[in-house]
């Protein structure tokens, strides 16, 4: 079983290298994180905070936008694209089970994403450390950021697989993936913010809002990272919430793990019903 899963994973990585997907994702993450680190942390010196730590705070917000996008772009084509090309017929006529196939894809895509994050963000960390503006504590924050970004990526990979097994055309799946990104990453926050502004002291603000943040993997990711940094006073915005939370921020991490597990299970159930 393991060898078949790894065969699929290795194939995904090889394709990722060949069509320069990995290179592109790494480049995007590197360029944005370097820009944030070099331009955005200029005032950090006067605050007396580790420059690496404040960069991690900005990168957490960057990850919320970029990682789901990269994950969805990797995943939306995984099943319906193979149906369209006819390769799924051939793969499924081999003695491989469908959950094995999906697991292989997920492992391959996760490794692609991990590589891009480690190299892309790692370049920024290396630059800051080498110029003497980063410390070991900052590196720990950096590692946490990368690890949770991978977890966030897995959540959105799984969303991509669900969309990919619900549609038969990769064009439809691409549209659905973009819609999912827009709703979960942009509109969800706007809606919460709108509701909060409309009634800042009502039952929504105190009872519903914190859990609504927990339910969305993108928000749970940001909540956990900013709370772990204790950087709420530095970055403001959503982070201000973490002190007034009715629960431990680790719950946000648990929510991410749970979401990834549930979405992957859902896609495994859906792929069983597919006629390739």
């Amino acid at each position, binding site marked *: 079983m393991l*060898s*078949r899963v790894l*065969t*699929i994973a290795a*194939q995904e990585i*090889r*394709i990722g290298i*060949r*069509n320069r997907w990995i290179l592109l994702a790494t480049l995007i993450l590197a360029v944005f994180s370097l820009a944030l680190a070099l331009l955005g942390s200029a005032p950090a010196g006067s605050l007396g905070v580790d420059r690496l730590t404040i960069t991690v705070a900005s990168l957490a917000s960057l990850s919320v936008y970029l990682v789901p996008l990269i994950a969805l772009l990797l995943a939306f084509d995984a099943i319906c694209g193979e149906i369209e*090309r*006819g*390769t799924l*017929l*051939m*793969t*499924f*006529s*081999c*003695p*491989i089970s469908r959950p094995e196939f999906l697991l292989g894809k997920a492992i391959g895509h996760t490794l692609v994403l991990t590589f891009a994050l480690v190299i892309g963000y790692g370049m920024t960390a290396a630059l800051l450390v080498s110029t003497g503006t980063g410390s070991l504590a900052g590196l720990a924050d950096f590692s946490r950021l990368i690890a949770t970004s991978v977890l966030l990526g897995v959540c959105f990979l799984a969303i991509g697989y669900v969309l990919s097994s619900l549609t038969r055309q990769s064009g439809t799946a691409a549209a659905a993936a973009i819609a999912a990104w827009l709703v979960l990453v942009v509109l969800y926050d706007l809606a919460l913010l709108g509701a909060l502004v409309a009634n800042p002291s009502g039952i929504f603000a105190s009872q519903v809002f914190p859990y609504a943040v927990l339910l969305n993997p993108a928000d749970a990711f940001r909540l956990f990272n900013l709370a772990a940094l204790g950087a709420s006073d530095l970055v403001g915005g959503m982070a201000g919430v973490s002190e007034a939370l009715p629960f431990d921020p680790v719950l946000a991490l648990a929510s991410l793990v749970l979401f990834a597990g549930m979405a992957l299970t859902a896609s495994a159930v859906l792929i069983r019903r597919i*006629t*390739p």
Partner: protein
Amino acid sequence: MTNSTLTVQSVTKRFKSHIAVDRVSFALRPGERVALLGHNGAGKTTLFKMALGFLKRDEGDIAVMGAAPGSNSARRVTAYLPESVAFPAALTGEEIVRFYARLKGANAGGALELLERVGLEDAARRRVGTYSKGMRQRLGLAQALIGKPKFVLLDEPTTGLDPISRQNVYELIGEVAEQGATVLLSSHALTELEARTDRILILSKGQLVADDELGTLRAQAGLPIRLKVWTKPGAVREVAEQLGAGKMNGTSVELDCGLDDKVRTLSAISALGNLVEDVDVHAPSLDDVYRHFSNTAQKEA
């Protein structure tokens, strides 16, 4: 029946109100090359997908080497080449064959040998994106030959290929069958199947309307041999009268005759001497036989 590679027993498949496959039964023996013919939408691909376990049948039974289609033991002996496959363009031919070899639990080291068998050894390290259509089809065949399968399903393996590539495909099919595998292939290009298959199945609107060797089917159909007699200018009418029948057509006369009448008719034509310039003898081709069975079935329906 127990040693059949594939057994299909009164299998029916419905899609909503439309019946795609209607009470079809047949059995394939080891080493047979069988062609499945049928018009577009006759149920060929549906039948293939049921034999692979991708589609559930509504009625009847299918067994692949005694196992349920789609079960692990069935998939281990089955190889399949779908109608149109687009392999990942960024990978090389060798990488793709190795990938499927690993999935099938076969020795990935044999990839080059397989590519050699389909004549792709020189292109093994080139990206599939640079392959021609014939090369891609041969790559698909190499995939279908991995691990010495016992049951090979090929969905229109020669569509879009040039005559030489087609010939290569049939040579490979012959080799595979000689090693004891059953090959079931579907095709539109009927004439090229003559002498290259042992048995022919004809599907029409989901029903199996013929299942036999080509020679037997030809005799069953009782189709006439068509003779075309080219005459001297102006002698058309005379020749037509002498031969007792026929359609006049400018400078030629066309007439049909039964198989047992063939020699008698030909000698009658040669007795006309220099009135005749040339004769075409057109035996019923597989196309004609196919059309006959398919039309008969439609009239009955």
